[in-house]
């Protein structure tokens, strides 16, 4: 019998439909992926499966193991939650109660659904923590969530999901908040869980690569409607619908190599940045945090240098030192031979990650773009600002709008316009597309490349996403623990990585080709063994 059968599901909030007529089936032990950009209705679907919506009207049927969820009583629903269907949420830090120990939280859920004794429940908690490969599970069960790292917390959430032996696990963007190597581990874990316990998996993500290697079937959603559905091998390799094709095309594609041999424009020499630790042990202070620990590299004129690393590797600190925002603890950064701090505002500019916090909410976007021009002494910058707006693909009339009135992609274009305003020679981009949808991301990347070519700019592109760099960068520097572990032409680093960490990063990059994704998983597994 089909485990989960959804027919004509419609979820409406007020008068806005989030999901409009969705139907699919899931067999026991199967793996289904739901892919879509933000606003496509995928998370709303997940919550509806557990009857967790409080303010939405739900039409249609959701049949789980014969029971219709949309019409079930509260008691029946509560019995299913956790024991029949278990959910793994996106943000592991906030998903667990900070006041209770991890083991206790898992045991509580287990006891609730099985009526087991405290001892039995604790044994089960330790058992599932071990099942998700958390080292030293007995001790870790007594720890609090904030004492776990991001990846371990997500494993703990998966452990909680496993504890009552559910028949279906729904994972809603389970890896979005994680680093790329950890992401790969979690996806491997979900796959392992599915094959060893026979639990069905419903995997929801905006990232095609995440879904590619972990599912048998996939549904592509857009604005609440299923645009295309079918076996993953088919949909992602030979898509029928134009939207699916658009999604696939938007994934970063490798670009032709451009050998750059011009002289260095920006030199970073033995730069270190140490932050003093505020926590103390006894009366002494702990060792300072070494965010950047001896980096030397050159940025050649006219090239795009990519800097890749996971969170906490120091790449943002490095980026900010490169524009002169933070002074290095030791070492020097020079632009055309002159220390970078004296070149601020004129030759170097920055594009920031979060388009919302990078624009002053109380100022019109026109004024925000005009700011660097005013600082240079220009008294009537309006004409130039309007020119810039048009150049980045926005309308002139947006001059007097406020940031909250624009979408994320538009705000990021404004950020780029502001960076271009003082005619800089070097632009440092700190994760400029990481918080954007995949189609918007592709557009903004295209814009950046276009501008660079047109003005002969030099760019430094900082990101955690190697795939993006493959498209946009000429050379790549791989950062790990505050040091550069590999530096070279992008094609070379991609095909023949030298350092172990680079290899690990490459193996973890999600790809939208299912065959390739499975091959990488096998490779990762063999390395782990």
């Amino acid at each position, binding site marked *: 019998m089909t485990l989960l059968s959804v027919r004509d599901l419609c979820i409406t909030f007020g008068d806005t439909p989030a999901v409009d007529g969705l139907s699919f089936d899931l067999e026991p032990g199967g793996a289904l992926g739901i892919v879509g950009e933000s606003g496509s209705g995928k998370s709303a679907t997940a919550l509806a499966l*557990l009857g*967790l919506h409080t303010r939405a009207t739900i039409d249609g049927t959701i049949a789980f193991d014969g029971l219709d969820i949309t019409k079930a009583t509260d008691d029946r*629903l*509560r*019995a*299913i*939650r*956790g*024991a029949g269907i*278990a*959910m793994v*949420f996106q*943000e592991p830090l*906030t*998903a*667990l*109660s*900070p*006041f*209770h120990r991890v083991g206790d939280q898992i045991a*509580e*859920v287990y006891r*609730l*659904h099985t009526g087991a004794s405290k001892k039995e429940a604790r044994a089960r908690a330790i058992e599932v923590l071990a099942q998700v490969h958390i080292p030293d599970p007995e001790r870790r069960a007594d720890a*609090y969530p*904030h004492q776990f790292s991001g990846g371990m917390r997500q494993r703990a*959430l998966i452990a*909680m999901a496993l504890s009552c032996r559910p028949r279906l696990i729904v994972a809603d963007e389970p890896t979005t908040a994680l680093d790329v190597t950890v992401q790969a581990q979690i996806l491997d874990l979900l796959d392992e869980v599915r094959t060893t316990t026979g639990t069905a998996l419903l995997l929801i993500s905006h990232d095609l690569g995440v879904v590619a290697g972990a599912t048998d079937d996939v549904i592509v959603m857009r604005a609440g409607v299923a645009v295309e559905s079918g076996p993953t091998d088919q949909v992602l390799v030979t898509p029928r619908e134009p939207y699916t094709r658009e999604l696939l095309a938007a994934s970063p594609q490798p670009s032709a190599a451009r050998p750059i041999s011009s002289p260095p424009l920006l030199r970073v020499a033995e730069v270190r940045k140490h932050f003093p630790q*505020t*926590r*103390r*042990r*006894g*009366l002494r202070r702990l060792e300072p945090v070494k965010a950047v620990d001896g980096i030397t590299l050159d940025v050649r004129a006219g090239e795009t240098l990519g800097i890749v690393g996971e969170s906490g590797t120091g790449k943002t600190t490095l980026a900010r030192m490169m524009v002169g925002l933070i002074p290095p603890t030791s070492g020097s950064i020079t632009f055309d031979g002159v220390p970078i701090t004296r070149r601020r505002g004129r030759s170097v500019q920055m594009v920031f990650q979060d388009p919302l916090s990078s624009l002053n909410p109380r100022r019109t976007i026109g004024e925000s773009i005009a700011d660097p021009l005013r600082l240079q002494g220009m008294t009537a910058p309006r004409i130039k600002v309007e020119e810039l707006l048009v150049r980045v693909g926005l309308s002139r009339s947006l001059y007097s709008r406020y940031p909250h009135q624009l979408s994320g992609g538009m705000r990021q274009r404004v950020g780029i316009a502001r960076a271009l305003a003082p005619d800089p020679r070097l632009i440092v981009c700190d994760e400029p597309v990481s918080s954007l949808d995949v189609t918007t991301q592709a557009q903004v990347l295209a814009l950046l490349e276009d501008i660079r070519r047109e003005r002969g700019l030099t760019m430094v592109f900082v990101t955690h996403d190697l795939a993006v760099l493959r498209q946009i960068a000429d050379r790549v520097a791989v950062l790990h623990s505050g040091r550069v572990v590999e530096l070279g032409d992008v094609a070379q680093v991609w095909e023949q990585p030298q350092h172990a960490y680079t290899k690990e990063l490459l193996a973890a990059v999600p790809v939208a080709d299912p065959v390739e994704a499975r091959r990488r998983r096998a490779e990762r597994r063999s390395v782990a063994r």
Partner: protein
Amino acid sequence: MIGYVLRRVAGALLVLFGLSVIVYALFYLAPRDPAVLTCGKGCTPERLAQVHAAMGLDESPVAQYGHFLQGLVAGRDFPAGPDVRHCPAPCLGYSFETDQPVTKLLADRLPVSASLAIGAEILSLAIGIGAGLLSGLRRFRFLDRVVNGLILAGYAVPVFLIGLFLLLLFCVRLQWLPFPQYVPLTTDPLAWAQNLLLPWTALAVIQSAGYARLTRAGVQQTLAEDYVRTARAYGLPERRIIRSRALRGALVPLVTLTAIDLAAIMASAVLTETMFGLPGVGQLLVGAVNQIDLPVVVGVTLLTGFLVVVANAIADLLYAAIDPRVQIR
């Protein structure tokens, strides 16, 4: 941990030192001479000089302060006619007005202020948390509005106004209670509680407003958190969610606030005590200030400062104990 304790102690000493310096400095700017008051009527210049010397006022301010510090740590000897009075450490001197040891005066009056503070605090917590919880859960729309309104009103009233109103209502109009007269707990617990009922209520009206608001906001905020959604997604019954997650999260700031408020009530008990005629530490202060009774003023100030500082330190410790995310730094 040791480092933390040492640092807090150092901070506390700094505050107390600063306080005592300020009070001493204030009195040296005073235009009136306390010796004149003590000397009384028919004061001749010679007698005035004698009183000066007896009170230790003939020395320089710095020397006086030095003696004071010495007395705190090691005890002091005061001239008293032909003999010498020994005042054991911590010595806060003798009252200029009544010649009693300040420490004794404070010790006599502290139980009154403490009774007032502790009782009021318990009452405020009970009312405040209860009202805030009910209101925050949004079960009864009407109750929520009423509580909201009461919170606003409670905040907006000075304690002596409520006290006045309560006295008028319960002692004059309805005559349900006699006028408050302090009876020590050890003498007659029932009378003690009965007499303190009105002062407790007056303080509780204001305090509970703050607690209700905090609890309500805390409960609402916690219920919107992700971990409550997880708990629901795993089938936990609503009542358990409220108890183990919502209330827990909301109460963390409240517990620490209690410690601070206890000290704050005692520090500002002046008004309540004056209003209700309770012989506490605050009332002592008002009298002493009007009489320029320096040792008493210094004594009261240091005592209240000490209580505030200790309460703050305890509050920080409690916070770290209750919220596992907070670490002692």
